[in-house]
């Protein structure tokens, strides 16, 4: 079941999960693109699972495939939770 979440909560979770996935953790930001971070489609599947586990929000393939930046992912999760 989805719970209301704040952008900062989602950001904290996503940033933490991205750290082991990227070469340069200092590059992680809302504006960073997944492409620049070298985060690929399998990584996005894993991030979707994290979102489901942490916030109860199911993100399917269609939801994720057009996400370009970390900020878009954060905003999507917040929108789904509200």
């Amino acid at each position, binding site marked *: 079941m989805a719970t209301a979440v704040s952008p900062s909560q989602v950001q904290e979770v996503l940033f933490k999960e991205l750290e082991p996935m990227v070469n340069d953790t200092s590059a992680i930001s809302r504006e960073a693109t997944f492409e620049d971070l070298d985060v690929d489609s*399998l990584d996005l*599947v*894993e991030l*979707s*699972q*994290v979102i*489901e*586990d942490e916030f109860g929000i199911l993100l399917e393939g269609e939801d994720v495939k057009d996400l370009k930046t970390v900020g878009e992912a954060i905003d999507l999760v917040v929108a789904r939770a509200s």
Partner: protein
Amino acid sequence: MPEGCALVTGAARGIGAASARALAADGWPVAVNYREDAAGAKAVVAQIESEGGSAIEIQADVSDAAETEAMFAELSERFGPVLVLVNNAGVRADALAPQLSDEEWSRVISTNLSAAFRTTRRALGPMLRARFGRIVNVASVVGPRAHAGQANYAASKAGLIGFTKTVAVEVARRGITVNAVAPGFIETKLTEGVDGWQDAVPARRAGTPDEVAACVRFLASPEAAYVTGATLTVDGGLSA
């Protein structure tokens, strides 16, 4: 052993039941899935528990998306994520191709192939997070090798092998292996009434469910961590 469980579909009898027992012997809590044979599933659970293992029977028609999702949700609550998935549920509906009905075609594809896709899709997310997973798809020598009257069954099993290889390469770098076993003629209800195989099998006998389960057990084990995208044929030399 990571925290989670093993799910064997179609585990009330035959290869599924034997696989459930084998995985339980290795310490996995096992979900014994069945569609209709509740008594069979309960007997498998009872045997596992009598041997010191942990198991539950869980009803779901894996050709039904909603029932499959409900099954995974229940298992997640009880045991944690499914980290070993054995897609064993399978049916036959034999007829020569010109006489196969749409229903016979769809039913076999739905249970034997589409269900495996659905359970795999559902299981992979938690496996990715756990950095561990074992998926074993029970295919068949009928797939790569023709057997008249089983075009639908062959298509489903050949498709399952292709699916196995593709998913294997998608997830290999996350510690998840995806393999298939391809049984030949095994003494189960599914092969009752199938004739004309005896002279073709070099071993001159049918295999047993336990012999297939031993292969499933190996593929699910830590020792098989570098085996992925493979099909292990268990057929007494039929395909050689």
